[in-house]
């Protein structure tokens, strides 16, 4: 009946306090017509997976600038899967060194959008990935 909105959780796992990027992305996704659940700073992977479950989101965006992505991202993916949410698309923002990118993509991360990425790029890719996962 009514059009099904894309719901995205934006979270900052770990201990760094730089949330400007996460807020910019949240705003860009809002302007692309999505419903963005913004959870704020210093979330544990467990908190993120729990929020993703309760909110029944289509995608989770993680913003990490602390360098802890290789520990935090696999944990979030694992927990989503354990909760029966393997269909949820996970994308990253923040600082991810080039050598880590293929490893994370291999783990199942949908996209990695560092500083300077145009908002059209990630809003379009997220939209496409979510629609493809629904059908």
């Amino acid at each position, binding site marked *: *009946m*009514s059009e*099904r*909105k894309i*719901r995205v959780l934006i979270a900052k796992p770990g201990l760094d306090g730089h949330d400007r990027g996460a807020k910019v992305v*949240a*705003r860009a*996704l*809002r*302007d*692309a*017509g*999505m*419903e*963005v*659940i*913004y*959870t*704020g700073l210093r*979330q*544990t992977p*467990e*908190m993120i997976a*729990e*929020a993703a*479950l*309760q*909110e*029944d989101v289509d995608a989770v965006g993680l913003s990490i600038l602390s360098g802890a992505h290789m520990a935090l991202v696999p944990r979030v993916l694992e927990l989503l899967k354990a*909760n*029966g*949410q393997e269909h949820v698309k996970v994308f990253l923002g923040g600082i991810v060194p080039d050598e880590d990118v293929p490893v994370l993509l291999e783990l199942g991360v949908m996209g990695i959008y560092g500083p300077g990425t145009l908002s059209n790029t990630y809003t379009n890719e997220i939209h496409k990935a979510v629609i493809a996962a629904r059908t």
Partner: protein
Amino acid sequence: MSELDLAQAVLAGDRLALARTLSHVENNTTEGRSTLSKLFAHTGHAHLVGVTGASGTGKSSLVNQLARYYRHPGEGLLPLRVAVVAVDPTSPFTGGAILGDRIRMRDLAGDPGVFIRSMATRGSLGGIASTTAAVVQVLDAAKFDMILIETVGAGQSEVEIAHLAHTTLVVEAPGLGDDIQAIKAGILEIADVLVVNKADLPGVENTERALRGSLDLAHPLPQRIRHHGQFETVPGQDDRIEAAEPIWETPIIRTVAIEGTGIPELVKAISDHRTHLDATGGWVLRERWRLKTELDMLLTNRLVEGFYTSLPAGVYDNTLQDMLERRISPYQAVEKLIEMVI
């Protein structure tokens, strides 16, 4: 998951099934409607508490503290299962929304007795979404004892929450406006409990005095009679439903949500209101009123939708064009369209 499974899984406490059902209901899908129909017989047990008030008064922080209190009531009391429905506005331009109420509710993470769901208004103007009532019913069937419904930052006319909740909290904070704001019609009239949050800020006495003054003069709601302590019946707008609800003196509670100050007093005011509703038959009146509101809304939507689909093609556009060219008035246009269908 099939429909039958979905309803059964919700009743069995499956959180993923609950989350999915809430999405179906929020999107008004066929599956959502049929699942809700199966769950409806299991509803009617939860105490629905609405939390409304202007932006920045601290609604989310209060909800966080209330939920924490219900989970850890102390003194050998049983913890209650708490669901939170937090509504934020949808952008009328892009259809998107930022749902940010969870930021203030991080204390509740990791507790299986708590379930938080954010909702966007999706075009509704009354402070909650058109499907909030249905979402609340699903949570009720999922055996949550307390359901806290946080509206969008509401100013003066967003009073729909009063038709949904058993107990409505209106949250104010010092420094938000003069005493004329307090005597305008609208949001203060729906308060069962008035909360002055941020009570550590200067000006709290003035805010409380203005609120107290406005309560003394409060204009009674149609279904609620307050006349210097006497019961009195006045005819309502709709005699089939309206009846006098006995007197409840709206308390004013001071809180500092971020510190948890005043929360036990607020919890007591909410439970006093519940006791009052139970003792006076107000609970049944409100249930009736709640369901009537929902029935009317669904009926109206269904009829309007059916009306548009049964109009012959082109008639609507032609009528609009006639109005644009001032050949017929809006009233005449309505008459014309209705005659086409009936």
